[in-house]
C-alpha cells in the first residue's frame, strides 16, 4: 500500500452519470485485478473506495470508472487533466489469475470495472472468457465494445430492456444456459447470492461502507460462512473472496 499524488491524464463521461478517469501513478506497478484504490476527494473527510478497472505497468497508468451517486463522486467529475489526486492503493485481495478452461465474468453496474483487467489477464493466460454485464438501461451501459475487443464473448442485460436481455444478469445466465468452470463476479449482494447458488467455484467481490480501507477500523466486516467466530474485513481480506467463504 502506497499513498501517492496521482495525476489526471483524462477524465471523461462514458455513460449516464458514469465517468472514466485515467491516472498517472507509480503504484500501477503493484496492482492486481480486482483490487481497489481509496481516493481523497477535496472537501470530504473520508476517502472513496473505487475499483481498479485496468492498469498499465509499463507506462505507470491506471483507469477507474466511477458513477456519480453523491457529492464525492460529483466532485471527482470536476478534476481536470493535470490535476493531482491523493490516492491510497492498491488495496485488498485480487481475482486470482490462473489458466482455466472457461470463466464466466459477471458484473452489475459499478461492479463491471474490476472485471475488465480480470478478463484481459484471464484471456492472456488462455482462458476462454464469457462476460455478462448488467446495467439499469442502455444509457448507463459502458465498456461493452471494450470487452469484445479483448476477445471475450459479451452478454448484456438491462433492467428496462433497452439493451440486451430485459432483466438481470442472472436472467441472461439462465436464458443462455451459461456455464463455466469458474465464476468471477462483482456487483450487488443480491446478485452475488444468486450466483453462489449456481456456481461452486470462483471468486466474488464484495462492497461495504468503509472508513479506513486498510483493515484498522472494522467498519467493513463480514462473517465466515461456517465459523461464526471468524470474520473478514472486506477492505483487507476482501473485497475478493472465493465462492462459499462469506456468510451473507
Amino acid at each position, binding site marked *: 500500500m502506497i*499513498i501517492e499524488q496521482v495525476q489526471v491524464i483524462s477524465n471523461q463521461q462514458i455513460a449516464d452519470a458514469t465517468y472514466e478517469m485515467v491516472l498517472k501513478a507509480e503504484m500501477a506497478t503493484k496492482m492486481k485485478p480486482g483490487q481497489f484504490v481509496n481516493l481523497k476527494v477535496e472537501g470530504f473527510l473520508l476517502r472513496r473506495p473505487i475499483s481498479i478497472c485496468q492498469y498499465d505497468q509499463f507506462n505507470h497508468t491506471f483507469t477507474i470508472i466511477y458513477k456519480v451517486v453523491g457529492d464525492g463522486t460529483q466532485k471527482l467529475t470536476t478534476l481536470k487533466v493535470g490535476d493531482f489526486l491523493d490516492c491510497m492503493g492498491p488495496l485488498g485481495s485480487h481475482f486470482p489469475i490462473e489458466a482455466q478452461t472457461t470463466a464466466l465474468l459477471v458484473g452489475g453496474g459499478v461492479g463491471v470495472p474490476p472485471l475488465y483487467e480480470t478478463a484481459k489477464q484471464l484471456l492472456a493466460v488462455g482462458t476462454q472468457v464469457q462476460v455478462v454485464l448488467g446495467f439499469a438501461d442502455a444509457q448507463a451501459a459502458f465498456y461493452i465494445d471494450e470487452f469484445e475487443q479483448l476477445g471475450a464473448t459479451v452478454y448484456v442485460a438491462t433492467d428496462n430492456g433497452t439493451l440486451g436481455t430485459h432483466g438481470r444478469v442472472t436472467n441472461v445466465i439462465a436464458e443462455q444456459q451459461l456455464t463455466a468452470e469458474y465464476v468471477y463476479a462483482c456487483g450487488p449482494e443480491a446478485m452475488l447470492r444468486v450466483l453462489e447458488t449456481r456456481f461452486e467455484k470462483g471468486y466474488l467481490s464484495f462492497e461495504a*461502507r468503509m472508513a479506513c*480501507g486498510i483493515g*484498522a477500523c472494522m467498519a467493513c466486516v463480514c462473517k465466515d460462512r461456517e465459523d461464526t467466530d471468524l*470474520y473478514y474485513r472486506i477492505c483487507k481480506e476482501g473485497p475478493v473472496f472465493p465462492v462459499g467463504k462469506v456468510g451473507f
Partner: protein
Amino acid sequence: MDLAIKLPGLDLKNPIMPASGCYGFGREFSELYDLSELGAIMIKAATPTARFGNPLPRVAETPNGMLNAIGLQNPGVDKIMATELPWLAGYDVPIIANVAGSTLEDYVHVAKTISQAPNVTALELNISCPNVKEGGIAFGTCPETAALLTKAVKEVSSVPVYVKLSPNVTDIVAIAKAVEAAGADGLTMINTLLGMRLDLKTGKPVLANQTGGLSGPAIKPVAIRMIHQVYPHVKIPIIGMGGISTAEDVLEFLYAGASAVAVGTMNFVDPYICPNLIAELPATLKKYGLTSLEEAIGRSHRS
C-alpha cells in the same frame, strides 16, 4: 527538542499516540512504519469474550466528521492476551489497554486480566462508548456510577487507570472530579458525540445501529472546551483527543490542558499521521515560541 513526558504508568517518548478503536492492534500500521516511534498505543477495546459488533453499515460520513457504530468488535480479552499483546511486545512502546463491557463485573474481569500483560502499562476505562446497548455510555453519564466503576477497577488493576470521559453529558467537570476522587490516575477525553444520519432514499438511519459516535475535526471545539473546563478542577493528567489532524491541533490540546494526545479518525484518512505529527511537533512548538512540551501544557490557563 525533547518530546518525552512521564505520566502515570506511561513513559512516553513523545505525546502522540493513536486512539482506541482507530488503530486495531497496530498490525496494519506496522507495515507502514515502526510502531516504536509512537508515544504509546491505545489498543481496541477489550471485552470479556469475543464480540462481532453491530450489523453493517457501521460508518457514515458527516461534514468534517464521521459516525461510527462498530459496537466494540474484538476477539475478547483472552485472545488479545494470547496473540495481540505478545506480538505488540516486539515493539518498544507502552500499551494502553482500552477496557469495556456491559456490566461492572465485565470491566473488573477485563481490567484484572489485561493489566497483567507485561507491556500493558496503563488501562483506559471506556465508560463512554455510545455504541453498545448496555453499559458503555450509561456508566459515563452519571458521576456516581462512573466513580463506582473506577473504584472497582482500581482495586484489581496492577497498572494505573485512565478513565475515558463521554462528552454527552451536562456537566463534564462533575464526572471528572468523581472519577478522580474514586482513584483514577488520569483522564482521557473525549470519546465521540452521539449523532445520527438519515438515508434520504430509505428514510432510515444510515447506520444499522441507528445512532453512532461522531468523531473527527467537527468535534474539536467541543473537545477543547471540555478539556479546558476540566483541567483546573483535577490534579490528574489528561490525554486529549477529538478531531486532531495537524500539529497545530496538538498544540491547541496541550494549551487546553492535555499532557499528551491521541489521534483517532485521521488515521483512516492518512495512516502516516502519527509519525508525521511526531516529526512536525518540534518545529510547531518552536514556531509559537515554545522551548519545551511543558510550556505548552495548560498554557491557556496561565497566559
